[in-house]
């Protein structure tokens, strides 16, 4: 046997085969390709509140109301609405809209979709519709929604991702299968092909109610977990937009021709959970000491290279009624030491639990060093998200640097999620519960006068920031990158792509 010859032939063949492709430039590409680390795991808007799914639901299902580029509410599937003087009845008139198969979207579909989110035992996130007492179809084009009591965030909550309208007939006929393949959609797109764990290919919904939209031939939502890979794909033109460019490469990418990186505002907040159920952070003085120990401005600078804003309150900076003028907790190591002494803290080591999300080990190391400086020794434990989500709700941690975001601009859901001790999630499992804050949460939601609401949310932020329900760290903008080939694409603070407005340049 002649090994040399076989090898030579093999190599030559490989080279010969590769030669014709060594030509720059890509083939004509009609659809818009978006890369994200967050994956689509279900096409049923009721079934998940995880980041990738939220992005997808927005493209598939229209809501009664929508937000325009300025973040204002405007008509969606409902062309008009009327709120009764006492604030407890909302009557919505539906426009003549159709599902992707051409069947009409009726008041029955709306009632079905909303009640399903509120009532279905498997509904992942019923909170936005919790105040909905009843929904009725007055006639095929009129929906009447009644509330327990006046509830200011309600119209905004009708715009949240899981309030998307699905087809009653289809879901009743196909059951859960209605969402595994080719669901009927009410939004700008329908599913062309879903390859779970890889990509979702979208095609325009021919019956979409906004005429002339989407302004493109389709889109691909591609899952790209590695951030360097997303950067490479943006640079090589294999993506038209990508989520989460690394902070360290923002400046360089902004300087690249053919790319833009506009740093769009987000409802994301980076913070550290402190477990209020366990010593030492069950003591408010130790929590305050932990907050005074951190130089939030320096941490923000180090983490984001100056692109994020230091956080001053416990809610995301992009939310309505965020109290931008509150001073936050000052960096004051001496005060921190004094508070620790007052609290009788004996220097026991705390466990800082982090998950595998990019950048968290950097953040944890910064916090560790600054806590060490005031005499709080800590040990970092890095686990994957599965373990993290078992240990945090189980109160098996002391501190947990992480992030969260809000799915709408109204602060109600954010407060219920992260600061309210009686709203179901134990203040994001910090087990912080202040009766005054819990009361204010309900009062602020029931208050219809914006000026008064502002004041109530200000109080909530003041109390929870001073009592250190969490340690707010920074408000990062989105670091999405956009290629020059596509225009009109952007992301709203609540993670919704303006994909239907985007067009491909020729």
């Amino acid at each position, binding site marked *: 046997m002649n090994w040399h010859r076989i090898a030579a032939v093999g190599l030559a063949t490989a080279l010969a085969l590769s030669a014709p492709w060594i030509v720059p430039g890509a083939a004509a590409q009609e659809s818009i390709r978006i890369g994200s680390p967050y994956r689509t*795991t279900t096409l049923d808007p009721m079934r998940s509140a995880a980041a990738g799914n939220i992005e997808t639901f927005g493209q598939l299902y229209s809501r009664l109301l929508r937000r325009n580029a300025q973040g204002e509410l405007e008509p969606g599937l409902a062309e008009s609405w009327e709120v009764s003087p006492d604030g407890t009845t909302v009557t919505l008139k539906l426009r003549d809209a159709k599902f992707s198969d051409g069947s009409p979207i009726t008041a029955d579909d709306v009632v079905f979709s909303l009640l399903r989110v509120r009532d279905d035992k498997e509904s992942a996130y019923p909170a936005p519709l919790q105040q909905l007492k009843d929904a009725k179809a007055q006639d095929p084009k009129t929906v009447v929604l009644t509330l327990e009591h006046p509830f200011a965030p309600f119209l905004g909550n009708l715009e949240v991702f899981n309030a998307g309208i699905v087809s009653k007939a289809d879901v009743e006929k196909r059951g859960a299968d209605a969402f595994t393949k080719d669901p009927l959609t009410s939004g700008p797109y329908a599913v062309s092909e879903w390859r779970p764990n*890889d990509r979702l290919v979208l095609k325009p919904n021919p019956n979409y109610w906004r005429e002339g939209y989407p302004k493109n031939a389709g889109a691909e939502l591609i899952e790209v977990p*590695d951030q360097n*890979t997303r950067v490479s794909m943006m640079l090589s033109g294999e993506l038209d937009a990508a989520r989460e460019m690394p902070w360290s490469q923002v400046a360089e990418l902004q300087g690249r021709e053919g790319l833009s990186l506009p740093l769009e505002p987000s409802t994301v907040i980076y913070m550290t959970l402190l477990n209020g159920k366990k010593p030492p952070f069950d003591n408010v003085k130790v929590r305050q000491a932990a907050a005074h120990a951190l130089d939030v401005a320096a941490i923000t600078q180090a983490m984001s290279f100056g692109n994020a804003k230091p956080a001053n309150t416990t809610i995301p900076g992009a939310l309505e009624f965020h109290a931008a003028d509150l001073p936050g907790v000052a960096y004051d190591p001496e005060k921190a030491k004094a508070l620790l002494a007052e609290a009788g803290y004996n220097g026991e080591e705390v466990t800082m639990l982090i998950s595998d999300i990019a950048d968290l080990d950097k953040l944890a190391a910064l916090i560790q060093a600054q806590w060490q400086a005031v005499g709080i020794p800590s040990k970092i434990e890095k686990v994957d*998200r599965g373990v993290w989500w078992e240990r945090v709700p189980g109160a098996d941690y002391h501190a947990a640097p992480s992030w969260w975001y809000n799915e709408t601009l109204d602060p109600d859901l954010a407060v219920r999620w992260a600061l309210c001790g009686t709203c179901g999630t134990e203040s994001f499992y910090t087990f912080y519960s202040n009766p005054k804050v819990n009361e204010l949460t309900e009062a602020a939601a029931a208050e219809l006068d914006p000026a008064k609401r502002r004041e109530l949310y200000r109080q909530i932020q003041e109390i929870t920031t001073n009592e250190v329900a969490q340690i707010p760290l920074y408000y990062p903008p989105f670091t999405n990158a956009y290629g020059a080939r596509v225009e009109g694409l952007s992301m709203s603070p609540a993670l919704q792509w303006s994909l239907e407005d985007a067009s491909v340049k020729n």
Partner: protein
Amino acid sequence: MSLFSALGQRLLQLIPVLIGISVVSFLLVQLSPGDPVRLLLGDRATAEAVAQVRERYGLDEPLLQQYFTYVGNLIQGDLGRSIRFQLPVGDLILDFLPATLFLIAYVVVISVPAAVLLAVAAARSQGGLVDQAIRLFAVVGMTFPVFWLALMMSRFFGVELGWFPVSGYGEGFVDHLHHLFLPAVSTSAWLIPLLLRNLRAALIEEMQADHVTASRSKGLGETYIFRRHVLPNSVLPTLNLLGLMISFLIGGSVVVEIVYAVPGLGSLMVGSVVGRDYYVIQGLTLVYALATVVVTLTVDILSTLIDPRVKL
């Protein structure tokens, strides 16, 4: 006859292997912390919704019962449904299998000839300049972090020169070759040194063996001796190593698949492990097991053909 009966025996032995793997992996996965439903429903999901979905997916049943349900379905050819996607596991795996198989075949086609050529060249100039250069290449290749090489190649050949795509798998054979070129080269960059060092050591050893010395004393030409005596007698350990590495690649080309966003079994596995998608992990485990056994068997059969003293 002996080959066939031995083959039959090996296939029979496959059954306990598969059962063993399925039991152990089932237990390990289910006992490790992390709730797939919590990960699926999202951070803000209510405890009630999580409990409800767990119940509907049968995740709160006793472990033993879950296992028997699983095996019962398995016997009927049903690998179960993905917890994350609610799609049949079999379909999911079949979607991701081709890219991985293609990549491995590509890697073998690149690595084996290169490794053999380099090892032969090195062995024949043992201690010489060529040998030293090849050994240096091998050391560097082995100690190079794969992700770093992969990233640099994608930035250089993909972004700067634009010769190759930096992601995906493409459509059609030629497109696959094009898309997977950089991933295959990145993988070969550590596989070639591994094989080459192994083969070189074996070759040098064999060149000093008695029967080779005897052939030399008979006045046979070096090249003839090399092809007829040295090479065939030295490839066995390398063949074994290659088999081992192919088995490893079927489940382990994760780094390269992630860096080049290749929709292969490695990225499916990572996604499933991180999302605690029990039945997909189970299904993948069985696929790995089958593939490993097939590769091992192939290597063993080849070994008996090359060296009749080795028994199957």
